[in-house]
């Protein structure tokens, strides 16, 4: 009897434990998504969010930012630069190679994004996703391909499962399409569909709209027009026999398309997009996501959603998704010293590292050239854009760092108080020569003195690789500093701006300069549609002041008339490029503007800067050896390495000269 009970017990246990024999071999993930999720509506929507999120991996990424600016007339490498920055200068500091060119930052994320977009476009229709939503995916595919084709030349349209198809294969070869194929098979149709199907007002804050799509389509037409025209015979890759358009159109046709779309963008923006009243307002952190900004990579003051850690630059993704481009062009202003004593020099840090728009984290990797400050911004009085671009005055903030001294002593042992200018970059060369120290001097950064001035001074000709004005427009801002310095080492919690409404004026003007037939612009910015009229809209706004940023005082002034008066009667491409630099200095446009117009060699083959040692204020003129092959970046080594191809095939895959 006892035995029987036992048998029943064991038998029952056995049955219980083995009941689901087969079932234990099944897999059901419950905490991770598999690619099947893209077959659901929620998956498609999440995919679209991911398309926006990928902007963060590119825009605000400091090393990619470097490739857009270093080596142009706007910027060179600074004192703490490493190889990534030095080679981009093309000034004998090493060659740009497939390994050290940081254009890889766009290569990988773009293809991941293109694949996601293709997956959405393929599955979305079946799942009943609206055309407006699908148009967002098409916008991003067109956007990514446009970025790729400008940077690398012709790039693959087939990721492994067929042209513009969602890739599910582990294929390890790749074949590049030609530039015209990329434009005509994806960029134009995708962005055209986006223009047609996107709404006028954004679906979400920062969402893409008809106007955004018009800007990029117009810019793509313009760029393709330049490519067809090829005024300076810059080679393309993969090579094409002659630059003919598969659709049989000429460059002029595309300039006109660009013009028409840009003007349509200006005329039809309605109340969704507007120019800000002053240039200062465009870039003022408190005014982020304003109506002038068409597209941005967003960030917020929340570690989970900003992509990084809001307390330091060591978030879960490293710096991969952080906005930290501005660190690169920030000099180490924290080395500036004042004195606690009015008689003997007792050094103390008076401008401390702070999460404030003028300051932020110094990386000292890039700096503006002397020419950028002197020539690109010749008028620093009427034109508010110099003041609205740079930090030219570093002000004392020591109480925020816990120092209680009410007064410190600075240049000429003159007293300074919190908020006083500690170091100023002068707008022009002063009448009296600046006395610079040999070496670091009391300022500890080699800054000079002028009689009677309590602030250290550096004139435009004294700008060096060590100490130079910072980029106020892109500096950090956050709301949780309290009375302290905040968290200056964290990635920025501000959005990184990618495209602005103002650029529609520049595109239309450039197209007009290239021969597009003007037509009247309607709406709030009504004008005759000529290049000069379009540019004057921008210049008039640049003449309006409401705040003197570096003087740190209110300044209500309207210099629009003077600005317009100074506009030349005939606008040429060089004037457009000069205006673009004033409007978008340091925002990552420059290299693309110069290669599009093929004016890079002309603009950037020499530049001026002082040396990297403290106290070195001797102008050096540096020569760059910009070659035609530099107009395309090398295909990243990661791509070459991962391909299962012969050495010859790999060589043929790489752009010429690399």
């Amino acid at each position, binding site marked *: 009897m006892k035995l029987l009970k036992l048998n029943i017990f064991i038998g029952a246990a056995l049955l219980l434990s083995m009941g689901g024999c087969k079932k234990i071999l099944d897999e059901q993930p419950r*905490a991770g998504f*598999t690619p099947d999720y893209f077959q659901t509506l929620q998956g498609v929507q999440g995919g679209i969010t*991911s398309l926006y999120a990928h902007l963060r991996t590119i825009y605000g990424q400091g090393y990619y930012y470097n490739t857009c600016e270093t080596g142009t007339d706007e910027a060179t490498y600074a004192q703490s630069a490493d190889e990534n920055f030095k080679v981009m200068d093309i000034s004998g500091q090493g060659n740009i190679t497939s390994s050290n060119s940081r254009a890889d930052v766009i290569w990988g994320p773009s293809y991941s994004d293109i694949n996601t977009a293709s997956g959405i476009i393929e599955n979305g229709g079946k799942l009943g996703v609206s055309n407006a939503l699908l148009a967002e995916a098409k916008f991003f595919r067109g956007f990514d391909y446009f970025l790729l084709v400008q940077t690398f030349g012709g790039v693959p349209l087939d990721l492994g499962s067929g042209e513009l198809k969602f890739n599910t294969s582990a294929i390890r070869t790749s074949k590049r399409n030609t530039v015209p194929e990329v434009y005509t098979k994806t960029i134009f149709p995708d962005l055209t569909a986006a223009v047609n199907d996107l709404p006028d007002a954004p679906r979400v804050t920062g969402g893409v709209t008809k106007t955004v799509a018009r800007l990029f389509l117009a810019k793509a037409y313009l760029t393709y027009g330049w490519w067809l025209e090829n005024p300076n015979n810059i080679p393309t890759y993969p090579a094409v026999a002659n630059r003919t358009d598969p659709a049989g159109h000429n460059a002029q046709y595309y300039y006109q398309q660009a013009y028409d779309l840009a003007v349509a963008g200006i005329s039809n923006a309605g109340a969704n997009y507007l120019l800000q009243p002053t240039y200062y307002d465009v870039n003022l952190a408190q005014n982020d996501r304003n109506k002038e900004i068409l597209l941005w990579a967003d960030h917020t003051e929340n570690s989970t959603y900003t992509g990084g850690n809001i307390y330091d630059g060591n978030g879960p993704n490293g710096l991969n998704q952080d906005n930290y481009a501005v660190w690169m062009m920030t000099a180490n202003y924290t080395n500036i010293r004042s004195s606690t004593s009015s008689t003997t020099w007792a050094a103390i840090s008076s401008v401390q590292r702070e999460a404030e728009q003028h300051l932020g984290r110094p990386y000292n990797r890039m700096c503006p050239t002397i020419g950028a400050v002197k020539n690109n911004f010749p008028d620093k009085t009427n034109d508010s854009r110099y003041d609205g671009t740079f930090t030219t005055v570093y002000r004392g903030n020591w109480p925020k760092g816990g120092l209680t001294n009410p007064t410190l002593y600075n240049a000429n042992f003159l007293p300074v108080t919190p908020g006083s200018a500690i170091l100023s970059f002068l707008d022009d060369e002063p009448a009296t020569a600046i006395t610079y120290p040999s070496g670091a001097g009391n300022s500890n950064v080699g800054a000079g003195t002028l009689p009677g001035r309590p602030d250290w001074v550096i004139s435009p000709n004294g700008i060096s690789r060590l100490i130079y004005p910072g980029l106020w427009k892109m500096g950090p801002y956050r709301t949780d500093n309290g009375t302290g310095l905040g968290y200056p080492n964290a990635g920025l919690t501000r959005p990184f701006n990618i495209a602005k409404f103002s650029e529609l004026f520049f595109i239309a003007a450039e197209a007009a300069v290239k021969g597009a037939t003007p037509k009247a612009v309607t709406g709030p910015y009504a004008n005759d549609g000529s290049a000069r009229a379009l540019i004057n809209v921008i210049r008039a706004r640049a003449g309006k002041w409401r705040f003197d940023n570096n003087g740190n005082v209110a300044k209500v002034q309207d210099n629009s008339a003077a600005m317009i008066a100074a506009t030349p009667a005939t606008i040429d491409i060089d004037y457009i490029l000069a205006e673009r630099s004033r409007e978008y200095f340091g925002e990552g446009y420059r290299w693309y503007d110069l290669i599009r117009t093929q004016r890079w060699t002309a603009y950037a083959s020499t530049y001026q800067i002082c040396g990297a040692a403290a106290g070195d204020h001797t102008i050096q003129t540096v020569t760059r050896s910009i070659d035609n092959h530099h107009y395309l970046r090398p295909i990243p080594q990661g791509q070459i390495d991962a391909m299962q191809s012969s050495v010859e095939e790999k060589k043929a895959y790489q752009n010429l000269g690399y």
Partner: protein
Amino acid sequence: MCTAFLLLLLTFFAQAQNENITVRGRVTNESGQAVSSASVALKGTSIGVTTGNDGSFQILAPANGTLVISSVGFATIEVDIKGQTTLNAKLTTSGTTMEQVVVIGYGTQRKEAVTGSVASIAGDKLRDIPTPNISQALQGRIAGVDISQTSTRPGATMQIRIRGDRSLTGSNDPLVVLDGIPYIGSLGDLNPNDIKSIDILKDASATAIYGSRGANGVILVTTNRGQKGQKARVSYNGYTGIQTVFAKYPMMDGPEFVALRKAAGVYSTNGLDEKNDVNTDWQDLMFQNGLVTDHSVSLVGGTQQGSYSFGLGYYQNQAVIPSQQYTRYSIKASVDQQIGNFFRVGFTSNSNYNLSEGNQIGIYANLSNTPISNPYNADGTLKKTVKMTLDEQYVLTQDRIDSLHDAGTWLNETRGFASYNSLYGEVSVPWVKGLKYRLNLGGDFVQSNNGGFTGAGVNNILATAVSSANISNTHTYHWTAENILTYDRSFGAHSINVLGLYSAEQTKVNGSSMSATDIPNEAFQFYNLGSALATNITVNQGTYQQSGLMSYMGRVMYSYNNRYMLSATVRSDASSRLAPGHKWHTYPAVSVGWNLVNENFMKDIAVINNLKLRAGFGQTSNQAVPVYSTLGALAQRPYNFGSAYAIGYYVSQLPNPELDWEYSKTINLGIDFGMFRNRLTGTVEYYSTKTEGVLQSVGLPPTSGVASIVQNIGKTQNKGIELTLNGTIINNANGWTWDAGFNIYANRNKLVELADGKTQDIGNGWFVGHNINAIYDFKKIGLWQKDDPYRSVLEPGVDSQIVGSIKVLYTGAYDATGKPTRAIGTNAGSDDRQIMDVDPDFGGGFNTRVSYKGFDLSTVGVFKSGGILISTLYGSAGYLNLESGRRNNVKIDYWTPDNTDAKYPRPGRNISGDNPKYGSTLGYFNASYLKIRTITLGYDFNYKLLKGSDVKLRMYATVQNPFVMFSPYHKESGMDPETNSYGNENQAVASYQRRLLTIGTNTPSTRNYILGVNLTF
């Protein structure tokens, strides 16, 4: 299928009947004297009793059964009962080791009959080293088993590698089996006092029985059980001791640091809190003496039909870092009960609760503080921070930590609870002699909860830094069901043992974690994260994994006349981790043995008492395919649309239904021998393991839109030899006895093939033809001296920067005049970095025990020779050898114009980033060392004071880590040469693959002085 099998089994239950009789008898030796404590066991079962002082025994056994009688020092004999109720047996003296029974997979076997590679160590031998963790006690004890320290924190467990690494991305940890059930927990969850023996299966012919989990070797842990009829005995084992810092980190003192900063010339002015006449020993302000305490009580006994064993344990270790400690409470129970003549049931339960505290405290900030900075204010209070020339650092001393700990504003706790349980029922099938069915059911539950809290401004130079708190938890559930049918029978000279198994098991792990900042009330610590503002709370991704394994297995062990042995195994495993259609795989193994000593021609060679040749071959695999990885994966990325939050998804891994295990094929050859009446015994083995289909994450071209795919492409290989010797050098001569053991082994690990015929994968640190553990870096060949030829070509720069800096090997070409054609560098096509193998040439261990009149003195040591030791303290990863005077520096002999034959470069020159150029090369040392792990002096009170008493008492004093020899690293730094960190831990910039073990800024290793007692009554 399943059901049919179950029905079959149920039939066995219903039918099982036979008649048991009580057998009485006496066991004597050759001269007729009683043999006490001899084991009398019923063959093919675990039923057994021990003889009393007069050699008598009584056992309930089937009338047709066989008794196996054994005792240490005697040859084991088998006696058929044949219905007799009285059975006297005579044992003959034999060697000591050869008659042991060893635990093999799903059963036991006489050591004499073993054909695979199985190494055993008894629990009491393990306890020679008083430690909370058997992995620590195993170090250096078994040839081919390499045990490395991965952390010096209290409660840390060791990394175990049996015969090298095989897998590149999967686990190389061996399978642990606890009392027959695959064990999912940590070895740290087991109280060493509960362990009876550990048996390690090293080769595939022994591990193939564990099929898809056998490739990394198997550790079989057997816990104490009572024996039938055994008198109840209570044992108490306890020890307590202090831990002192083995060696302080070799940092500079004030004057040395001032000289370095001056020589570097980088920082001409001191920081606000620095003065050249200050000499602060920051480590003295931090470290304390640690304390270790262990108490274990056990009760073991038996009744006529059953037996039981209970154990309770308490262990605590307070570290040398204030507030850091580990505490464990453990409880163990096992019961076996015979029911009727043919049934036996029993259960085993091992549970523990453990608590780790204070692991948030790092020592980098302490070590890197300059010795010339003064931590005290003028009024004697501790400064919050010290301002050095460039850095400001939070002041962390024992006083500071204690006060924060008392205030409850800085803590980190991990609380673990684990319960491992198994239940069995066993029935002997009466009408087929030797046939038995057994059901094993296992059920385990493991949970771990972590909580951490850092108050506002704590451990932060910003007084305004907000508080932060985090919690996380994981739960693991695991069940196993095994049906085992055995047939064990001898027919004359033929012995056969057949085993069939059907089993299933499933593991589920899930976890969650969250964190918050700015906790409104600091008293909440990490107990109410919800009290923070919703925007300050982050709930992290949850984890969930469920995997199952289903298996059939069969094994035949045959032996003829104790001379020729054969063992053959086949196992089929199906795993949920593989895609449908690819789930099943079958693993074969076969091994043979020849007991030469039992051949007639050996009879006359008296000096040899044992000689056995073994050979085996088998295939196994490694469950390296991560759960769900055949399905592909989407990665998530959050985004904000202004203030609206959203989550995006993109494809990060393509599905791969073809994924398969990594298969290892092993050949094993062995010789076991015993000489001089088995006073010298030993084993020599050779093995070769080839692993194929090694999983690699293959990088796809970025143009495929997906970063990578996991594929089975790659081959690795391990070859090695092992030698183990045990001897009784003096056998009770004038009361002196001296036993010694020695083992030495060499493993040659090699990566044979990577994806696409590539010879190297620099990103992952894999190089064909080299160890899986290899470093890729420049090779330091000295320092640049003023007149070195071609210096300006190889290392361009001005003399004042380059002379005295690190000179590394140049591998490029030379022109006709012998001039190098380029500078040293890492540009495309001019990479001068070298591949350096990390594994040692050989390693091993030794132990010796001398006893005299109740005293015993024993020593256990471990050694290894060759290989590379990575010390991030000296390399550039640790930021403790910046040589710039920015922070404190390790004490080094550096180049100056007056000291040009120094080992370390000229301070402050030829800097790359923050470190001397090629500074990483300063962190590589010869890894050789010989270390005495323990010296124990014990006294057995039963020798005189308690002679003949039932109370057994032994007391001992142990010193652990007394000294280190033959270690170049120890010689230079004074430190313990054992690693203390994974390759990406305890350094300023994570610079190495995690799998490379390093010495970094972890809790210092200790030298321990312990007093202990073993009491049984």
